[in-house]
């Protein structure tokens, strides 16, 4: 019954989306603004219905209802409840249902809370949102029904990919999806503004919170995904330039650019066409990413269902929405007047440079990801790996970091170079000193990119604090704090990446229980190896006593065997200290009684994710700061 209720809710939601599209189209066409009042409750009900449908699916997974095809092929009754729960979206159909649910709820939020926007732009936005949702409803209902039954019902299910049986998975995909869908709202806003030809500061202010929120969630999603790959895959790396990782990075790069250009539009009423373009690109990247993951045309550890029919469906949606938006852009944006002008030396031009560099990095990642497809079309099989991305994108990313340090110190409209020189004198001096020091110490032993990264991280960190210089800290607006913390986060993350590449010590040994291993100041005593059993796995676990001078700590890397489906995974043991992480992986039995151990000491590697969290926190502060200011304005107006 639950399954049927969920399916009915989904059909009803789709019908309401159609109604919402019809209402808003009629409203725009006939110039009837009052239809907005009718479209709003429709959007809210649609959101509620998608939520009901999703809850139904979660309930079916929690009850392990094996008469459901989706549950039977992705879950197992012996699975811990958290993974039954996460299993609801750890598959193609469930994750698409999650997508439309988040989209429905976002549409409801736009209908309920958006007050600043002109009524016609608001209506066009709701129309755009309904049009996008409709495509995904059709996709779900016609080609990926999550509520399909299986008859006869199997006695038990096939289980969830053990790599995905990890608390990280319970939260990583939903976070990314929230981010993607947030970008769909920004996209709808852009469509709305293009349709009504109102690309102005008010539009930018209405769109900004959605961009900020989506960007914060993408940042968190990528940070969590990177940490998951780091400890779960057991390769000791934190970013692999895997197509699916790139699929999450590309929307983030576009959203970062959009975030900055929307600020220029909101504050200075410049970069109108460009901002609209970026809003379209940002959502295109989410959809291209989804397409690459879902269609299986690129091989990746993340691929769920390889199914050309589904691939064609998403490709058709992509053609319809993005093609439509870009055509609308070409047709309408000529009518959008040029915004306010600015001089070459100004905050605006620094932000334009930021946007250009981010877009170049985006282009590099996109080309690198699609290149194997291009060459395959001409009959060659190649794969593009980390060296390409590191070498090409790395230097541009470092330039971007330098620009990030300078930009916030420039004034809006125009500034002079001499004054700027004074403001950045201290960080520039630091940069010169750290470069000289690092070249003296590390030339030859450290690679060029890590060396530059290390040299840049510290002065950029200092410079990112500079906007707080000589200000009363408590009276500084929250969004300035947000910017400072996010920029500092970038520097912290860069420091972590550079330290990891420059100073990691790796050791691969075959050891017998009882032996001890010394590496990077640590002493590891391999005490014993013994089998243990978990909920739905058995494992060989090594007990290793790790010490560095003082007290010893036990660490226990495992080599796990999951029975359903049968897979072996290695569970790395991590020991976090203030200045780094000890990372130990238990490998195969080398020969009688000796076991392979792979040991890494990674100095300051945790800074990478700490930086990521700081960037997201900065976004949250900026969001609160901006919105709070908006509320205050409203109250004042209400009082007056």
């Amino acid at each position, binding site marked *: 019954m639950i399954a049927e209720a969920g399916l009915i809710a989904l059909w009803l939601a789709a019908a309401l989306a159609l109604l919402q599209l019809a209402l808003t189209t009629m409203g725009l066409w006939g110039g009837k603004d009052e239809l907005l009042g009718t479209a709003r409750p429709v959007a809210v009900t649609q959101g509620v219905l998608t939520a009901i449908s999703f809850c139904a699916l979660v309930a079916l997974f929690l009850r392990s209802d094996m008469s459901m095809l989706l549950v039977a092929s992705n879950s197992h009754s012996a699975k811990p409840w958290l993974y039954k729960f996460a299993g609801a979206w750890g598959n193609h159909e469930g994750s698409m249902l999650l997508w439309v649910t988040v989209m429905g709820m976002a549409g409801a939020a736009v209908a309920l809370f958006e007050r600043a926007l002109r009524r016609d732009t608001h209506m066009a936005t709701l129309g755009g949102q309904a049009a996008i949702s409709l495509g995904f409803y059709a996709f779900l209902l016609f080609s990926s029904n999550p509520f399909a039954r299986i008859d006869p019902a199997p006695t038990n299910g096939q289980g969830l990919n053990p790599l995905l049986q990890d608390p990280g998975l319970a939260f990583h995909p939903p976070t990314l999806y929230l981010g993607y869908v947030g970008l769909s709202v920004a996209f709808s806003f852009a469509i709305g503004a293009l349709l009504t030809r109102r690309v102005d500061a008010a539009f930018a202010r209405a769109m900004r919170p959605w961009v900020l929120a989506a960007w914060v969630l993408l940042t968190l999603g990528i940070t969590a995904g990177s940490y998951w790959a780091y400890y779960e895959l057991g390769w000791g790396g934190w970013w692999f330039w895997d197509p699916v990782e790139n699929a999450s990075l590309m929307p983030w790069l576009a959203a970062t650019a959009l975030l900055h250009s929307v600020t220029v539009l909101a504050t200075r009423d410049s970069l109108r066409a460009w901002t609209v373009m970026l809003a379209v*690109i940002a959502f295109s990247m989410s959809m291209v990413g989804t397409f690459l993951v879902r*269609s299986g045309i690129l091989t990746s550890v993340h691929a769920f269902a390889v199914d050309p029919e589904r691939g064609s469906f998403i490709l058709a949606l992509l053609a319809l929405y993005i093609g439509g938006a870009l055509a609308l*852009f*070409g047709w309408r944006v000529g009518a959008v007047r040029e915004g306010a002008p600015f001089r070459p030396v100004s905050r605006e031009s620094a932000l334009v440079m930021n946007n250009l560099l981010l877009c170049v990095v985006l282009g590099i990642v996109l080309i690198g990801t699609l290149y194997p*497809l291009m060459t*395959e079309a001409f009959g060659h099989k190649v794969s593009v790996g980390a060296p390409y991305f590191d070498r090409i994108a790395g230097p541009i990313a470092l330039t971007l970091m330098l620009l990030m340090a300078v930009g916030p110190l420039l004034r809006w409209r125009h500034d002079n170079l001499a004054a700027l020189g004074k403001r950045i004198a201290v960080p520039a001096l630091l940069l010169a000193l750290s470069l000289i020091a690092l070249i003296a110490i590390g030339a030859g032993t450290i690679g060029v990119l890590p060396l530059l990264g290390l040299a840049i991280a510290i002065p950029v960190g200092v410079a990112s604090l500079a906007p707080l210089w000589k200000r009363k800290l408590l009276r500084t607006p929250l969004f300035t704090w947000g910017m400072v913390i996010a920029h500092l986060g970038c520097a912290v993350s860069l420091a972590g990446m550079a330290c990891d590449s420059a100073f990691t010590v790796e050791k691969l040994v075959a050891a017998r229980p009882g032996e001890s291993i010394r590496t990077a100041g640590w002493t590891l005593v391999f005490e014993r190896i013994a089998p243990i059993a978990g909920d739905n796995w058995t494992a060989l676990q090594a007990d290793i006593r790790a010490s560095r001078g003082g007290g010893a700590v036990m660490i226990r890397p495992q080599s796990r065997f999951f029975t359903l489906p049968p897979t072996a995974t290695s569970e790395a043991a991590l020991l976090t200290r203030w200045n780094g992480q000890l990372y130990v992986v238990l490998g195969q039995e080398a020969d009688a009684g000796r076991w392979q151990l792979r040991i890494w000491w990674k100095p300051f590697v945790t800074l990478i994710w700490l930086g990521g969290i700081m960037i997201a926190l900065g976004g949250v502060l900026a969001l609160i700061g901006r919105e709070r200011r908006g509320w205050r304005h409203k109250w004042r107006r209400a009082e007056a």
Partner: protein
Amino acid sequence: MKRSLLLWVPLAAFVAVLLLLAGRLASPDDHVIESRLVGQPLPAFDLPAAASDRPALRSTDMAHGKPRLVNIFASWCLPCAAEAPQLMALRRAGVEIDGIAIRDARADVDAFLNKHGNPYTRIGLDARSTVQMALGSSGVPETFVIDARGRIAHQHIGDIRADDVPKMLQRLEAAR
């Protein structure tokens, strides 16, 4: 270039990417990965019997002058149940099929064969997947074509669909 023309550049670029993706999607999928073990003799193994009414399986049973299939399956695997009719069809066509049951129990295998039919001549029980790994197989079901001299001629990954049956027969013919 005039600004008005410039505005259509994004659309043109997008259409180019779209055509590329559509082209890739339409072109025949090559999920066939040639195994490195093709042409190699089977690794040596000696597995206990997995079902009550079929003998055990040794690698030396395979070099008998007649090509055959080795099907890797498990009673807990849904696609294996889905491919059972195709295996029965191959058996009816006179193909010799040996099975390797992965991480299984005899009672479960018996129940599975009762329900879905038993196309196998011999079935070995690979309780810890060791033989499966030696064969370079990473999942169930998979099927190997073994030629008359006991060498691996082909590895089929995933279940055998109805339209794979004639291809399998061709491969067996070629492996004589």
